[in-house]
């Protein structure tokens, strides 16, 4: 089974040279720590920076330079700042190659719910609806089940949707899955996790074809 860093590490293997990537808050943020050697990617943060770098050293924080999680950050050589409308032109116009974000629920059709629990948690969608409606390649990073043990990979989402038919892949603590027309296609198992474990934790239609390899990490 993977922890949050393990999920981030597996997703990082999906990065390709030359990708512009938008990372959501939570597990997706950790992906930046595991960029494969020999490739160049640039991170976009929708509040208005392209070429986001690591956190600043203590004493070098700049209140005017933050990411979408409101954290103090630095910038890489070649970085740029821009306004919010320009930022979402990058996203809506599909100039950003890959979006990685967290979710509360994903359906077998690729619907995603991650912004609201009616009557309980109402924080807002931020940029998530724009991102999922526009991005060509969306990977969801999340735990396979919720705290109560219920599956988060469902036939239909029960929570208010963020977007429809948009998620391409899901990486959880148990597995890497691809969304296909017939449902969740199991591509890889997390270390020490069996196909049955994954089947038991998946409510939506799970497609298992042939031997499912275990994830490999360098």
């Amino acid at each position, binding site marked *: 089974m993977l922890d949050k860093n393990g999920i981030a590490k597996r997703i990082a293997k999906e990065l390709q040279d030359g990708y512009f990537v938008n990372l959501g808050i939570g597990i997706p943020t950790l992906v930046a720590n595991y960029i494969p050697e020999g490739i160049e990617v640039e991170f976009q943060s929708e509040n208005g920076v392209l070429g986001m770098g690591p956190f600043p050293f203590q004493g070098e924080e700049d209140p005017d330079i933050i990411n979408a999680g409101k954290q*103090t950050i630095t910038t890489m050589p070649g970085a740029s700042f821009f306004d*919010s*409308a320009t*930022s979402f032109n990058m996203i809506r116009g599909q100039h950003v190659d890959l979006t990685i974000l967290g979710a509360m629920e994903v359906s077998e059709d690729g619907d995603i719910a991650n912004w609201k629990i009616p009557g309980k948690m109402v924080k807002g969608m931020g940029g998530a609806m724009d991102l999922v409606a*526009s991005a060509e390649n969306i990977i969801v990073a999340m735990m396979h089940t919720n705290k109560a043990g219920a599956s988060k990979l469902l036939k239909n989402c029960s929570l208010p949707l963020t977007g429809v038919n948009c998620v391409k892949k899901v990486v959880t603590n148990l597995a890497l899955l691809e969304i296909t027309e017939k449902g969740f296609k199991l591509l890889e198992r997390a270390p020490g996790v069996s196909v049955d474990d994954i089947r038991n934790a998946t409510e939506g239609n799970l497609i298992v074809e042939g031997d499912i390899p275990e994830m490999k990490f360098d």
Partner: protein
Amino acid sequence: MIRKTVPNVTEALSGVKDNMTLMLGGFGLCGIPENAIAELVKLNTTGLTCISNNAGVDDFGLGLLLQKKQITKMVSSYVGENDEFERQMLSGELDVELIPQGTLAERCRAAQGGFPAFYTPAGYGTEVAEGKETREFNGKMYVLEHAFKADFAFVKAWKGDEAGNLIFKGTARNFNPCMCGAAKITVAEVEELVPAGTLDPDQVHIPGIFVQRIFQGERYEKRIEQRTVRKRE
């Protein structure tokens, strides 16, 4: 040169009345018009509709107006940092319209640029699109969203000149440029107000034509919401 300078925040906010619709720049606490917000608290204007990406934190930014119940409606994309906000919203005291962040930015820019409405894919198939016109373009579905209408826009820039030309710094730019000229009156506050001719016209982010009033902010706290650092190796 058409001068836009006003001597202080009090004059900058003259004409602000109860029940008005205000735009306020900023993302989180980054690039918020701190001085205009402080003056709104002092004026105790009520019944306000505020268009702003976030609602501040409990004791800073728009949170200060929420504490005093000066706001009756918020139009935002993310409000998760403010407990008082969540309490007022769940209890029904505060009317809230949550909209996607890119749609929020574009509704400002549409107002700035004279577009009545535009189509965006954001929110299609979700409750955000309920009751709205949808249309297919090239096999994909889009939602019709309308330009905002606001009485005042309060923005914050790093530097500005007497002509109202503005330069922003870092990610404090965010929604500020989109809101300039998107309301009947745009009020810009700056950290440094310089004489006309000082700024390089090539480096101006927002031309003064979009700004009606500009003033030098008295002080900036620039509070950091999430201070994240790394260790020196």
